[in-house]
């Protein structure tokens, strides 16, 4: 038995697991900033997208078109390598953020998720029945109150499943930030691979951690769905 435990402890996959685990906080840090920021901005962008101001709506529509039509990798490279090569950006205050791969990653992930999120929320806002808005208006709700009490709660809970999908895609997308020398889980797994020439062991360790992270995300979204859709619960 002890021999067996020892052999597990000496196995590459066990050692790698803890090495990769040390990159988990960096992955989570990326998500902790870009997801809430992306959520708020996506809501604002969705409202702008459905607004009657044509210029605003058109601008946001083309922003969404460009971001959704290009790979995230291009966006990350554009921000990390592209913007860093411009002289006046290097001399401005922006350089404090852009010289750090972490902040480049956060900016790129946020820009990306805002485009997808805004499109999801737009669907939610546009699917609200007119009668609900009319009843709000007949109760004398102002524009802001209508937004806060009727439009946003209904829209958000309606699109929770698809927004949950987007959240999982974001968890997976953090792995791309490793290509800008930022050492999160994929970056560490890549480094272990280069050192030990044992690709399967290194990447399986990282894969298990990503699966776990996504499992937590799924449970979180399920909980939100349960909490904010009381009328859909089977037994209450």
């Amino acid at each position, binding site marked *: 038995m002890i021999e067996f435990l020892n052999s597990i402890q000496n196995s590459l996959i066990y050692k790698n697991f803890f090495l990769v685990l040390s990159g988990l906080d960096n992955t989570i840090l990326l998500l902790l900033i870009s997801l809430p920021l992306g959520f708020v901005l996506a809501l604002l962008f969705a409202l702008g997208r459905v607004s009657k101001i044509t210029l605003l709506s058109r601008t946001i529509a083309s922003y969404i078109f460009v971001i959704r039509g290009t*790979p995230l*990798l*291009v966006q990350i490279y554009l921000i990390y390598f592209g913007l860093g090569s411009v002289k006046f950006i290097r001399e401005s205050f922006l350089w404090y953020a852009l010289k750090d791969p972490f902040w480049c990653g956060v900016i790129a992930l946020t820009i990306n998720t805002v485009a997808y999120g805004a499109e999801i929320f737009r669907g939610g806002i546009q699917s609200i029945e007119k009668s609900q808005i009319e009843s709000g208006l007949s109760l004398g709700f102002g524009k802001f109150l209508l937004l806060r009490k009727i439009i946003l709660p209904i829209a958000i809970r309606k699109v929770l499943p698809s927004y949950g999908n987007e959240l*999982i895609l974001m968890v*997976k997308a953090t*792995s*791309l930030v490793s290509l800008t020398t930022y050492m999160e889980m994929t970056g560490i797994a890549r480094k272990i691979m280069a050192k030990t020439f044992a*690709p399967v062991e290194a990447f399986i360790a990282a894969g298990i951690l*990503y699966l776990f992270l996504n499992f937590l995300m799924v449970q979180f979204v399920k909980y939100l769905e349960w909490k904010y859709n009381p009328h859909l619960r089977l037994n209450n």
Partner: protein
Amino acid sequence: MFKFEKLVFGDSGWGDEFLIATLMTLLVSILSMGLGLFLAIITVWAKIIQNRIARFIANFYTTVIRGVPELLVIYLIFFGGNAVVMGIAKVFGYNKYIELNALTIATIAIAIISATYSSEVLRASYLAISKGQLEAARALGMNKFSIFFKVISPQVIRHALPGIGNVWQITLKDTSLISVTGLVEIMRQSRISSNVEHSPLTFLITAAILYLCLTTISGRVFKTLEVNYSRGFST
């Protein structure tokens, strides 16, 4: 800052290199989409037949691949794929060193990712076919093959086209990750060019525009196909 004059065709510019790279991106996308659809059909079949082991394997495959970053899958197949192929070859008594070329690895890796998405789309559209139709086909004495080709596939194609269009866009964008394996497609080409010319902004914007063109044009193609396949149905 910008060196767009470097994008001319010929020896002094990168235009022709980018054209070849774009074709490479398209080639990888089409090959892996095709292989992915084939894998997806097998996966769906494994999910709908009444066999626990087959269903477990299929579910395990789609859950794991969809829960793990694409980059990780590509790394795993790029660095670990050779060992697997050589292991299989050893079983058949072939002991020499085998190296898969970058295109094969890229196609297999992207196909494995793309198949998980396609399989969900195909499964949903298979389930959308009403049971009565299958029963009617069986009552007419059609065998399994003609049921598949004359009843199931035409309807699955119609139901699945919008979803398959989405999967195609995802696959097209996922090919950019293949650049880490050294295959020269748009992303890799833009990195090479910007390293030579010291102007990353130019070539990365070029790459972005090329991807945008590819996604937009193929989006149009899928729209046309959808209209074509839903003739006679009010949409």
